[in-house]
C-alpha cells in the first residue's frame, strides 16, 4: 500500500515540480521570435527630418530608405522612441559605431515606433545629433511585420538579407561590434545593389571588438 501511495504521490508531484522548474527560470517577458534565419521583411520608409550633424553617406531628410536596395550590405535596424529611457542609452554606442563603420558595408537605421516625429527630432538634437538616419513608420506597419513587442529592439540583417539576430531590450557597444563583425566576415557573392555602391564617401576605420 505504501509503495502505491508513493507512486501516486510521485505521479502528482513530479510533473508539478518539473513544470515549476522549467517555467520559473524563464523570463516571462522574453518572447521567442521566428524571424532569425528568415528573410528580413522589406520596408520603404521616409527619413526623419533633424537639424543635427548628419552622415552624407546615408539618405537624408525627405528621402526614403528601401531595405531591398541594401542587399549585399550588413544592416542594423534599431526600433526606438523618445519616451523610451532604455533607447537613450543606445544612442551613443549606435551613433559612434555608425560613424566608425563608415566606409564599410554596414548601414545603421533607427525606426521610430509609436512616437511623434517632432519629439524624436527634438531629443536627437538635444543629444548632439545622430550619425545615421531615423526612419518614420507612421502606422507601425513595419514594426508589426518585424514582430515588435516593445522598444528597444534591434535586428542585425546579414548581407543575404536574412535576419541574423534579434536583440530584445537595450543593446550595447560590444554586442553591436560582435554581430556586425561576424556578419561582415560572411562571404557575399550575390549582386551588389545601389546601397552597396554608395559606400565609400568616408574613409574606412577598423573597429576593434
Amino acid at each position, binding site marked *: 500500500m505504501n509503495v502505491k501511495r508513493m507512486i501516486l504521490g510521485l505521479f502528482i508531484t513530479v510533473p508539478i515540480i518539473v513544470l515549476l522548474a522549467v517555467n520559473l527560470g524563464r523570463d516571462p517577458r522574453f518572447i521567442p521570435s521566428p524571424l532569425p534565419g528568415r528573410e528580413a521583411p522589406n520596408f520603404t520608409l521616409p527619413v526623419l527630418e533633424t537639424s543635427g550633424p548628419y552622415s552624407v553617406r546615408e539618405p537624408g531628410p525627405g528621402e526614403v530608405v528601401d531595405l531591398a536596395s541594401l542587399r549585399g550590405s550588413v544592416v542594423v535596424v534599431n526600433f526606438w522612441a523618445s519616451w523610451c529611457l532604455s533607447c537613450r542609452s543606445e544612442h551613443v554606442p549606435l551613433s559612434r559605431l555608425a560613424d566608425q563603420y563608415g566606409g564599410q558595408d554596414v548601414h545603421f537605421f533607427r525606426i521610430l515606433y509609436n512616437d511623434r516625429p517632432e519629439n524624436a527630432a527634438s531629443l536627437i538634437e538635444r543629444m548632439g545629433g545622430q550619425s545615421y538616419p531615423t526612419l518614420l513608420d507612421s502606422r507601425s*506597419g513595419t514594426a508589426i511585420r518585424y*514582430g515588435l513587442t516593445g522598444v528597444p529592439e534591434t535586428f542585425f540583417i546579414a548581407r543575404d538579407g536574412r535576419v541574423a539576430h534579434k536583440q530584445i531590450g537595450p543593446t550595447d557597444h560590444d554586442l553591436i561590434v560582435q554581430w556586425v563583425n561576424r556578419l561582415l566576415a560572411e562571404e557575399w557573392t550575390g549582386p551588389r545593389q545601389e546601397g552597396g555602391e554608395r559606400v565609400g564617401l568616408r574613409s574606412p576605420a577598423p573597429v576593434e571588438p
Partner: protein
Amino acid sequence: VSRTRIPLLGAAVLILAAPLALSGQSTPPGQSVVPDPEQFEATARTDDPELEAQVRKLSRELRCPTCQALSIDDSPSELAREMKGQIRARLQAGMTPEEVRATFVEAYGEWVLLSPEPQGFNLLIYVLPVLVLLLGAGIVLVGMRRWLVQPESGASGPGPGDPAEARETVPSAERAPPAS
C-alpha cells in the same frame, strides 16, 4: 489508496481536467503559412458589418504583444489598434482570415495565437486533458464498482449506509483464520 478515496480522486482529476478540455474545444484548424510580401497600411473602421465581424473575430484570436494576456480586441494599446487596422487592410486586400492569421504568426510566432495550433508539441495541450478526463472517469468507475459491490460480499458487516465501516470490517473478516 483506500477504496473510498478512489472515486474522490477520480472526481478531483475530472474537475481539474475539465477547464483544460473545454479550452481545447475552441481549436482553430491548422493553417499553412502564407508569405506577406506587401506592406499594408492599417485602415480605419468601415460600415461593412461582415468585414468588421471578421476583423473582430480575428482580433479576439490574436494576442496583444505589449500587454499581459489580452487579445488585440480587448487591448487599448496603440500597437493593438494598429494591428487591428492591419487585419482590416489585409482582409480588404482579399486575403482570407486564415492567411491574415498566418501573416501574424510569421512575424510573432505561434505565441501570438491565444489558442495555439494543434500541431506537434501543441497537440499535448489538446490531447492531455482528454486523456486525463478518461483516466479520471476510469478511476471513478473502478472506485464506484468496488464501492457498490463491497456491501454484498460482506453480508455480516454493517449496512450499506456506512461504507467506511464496511471497508474496515471486510478485510478483517477475510483475514480471519479458517475454523479448525
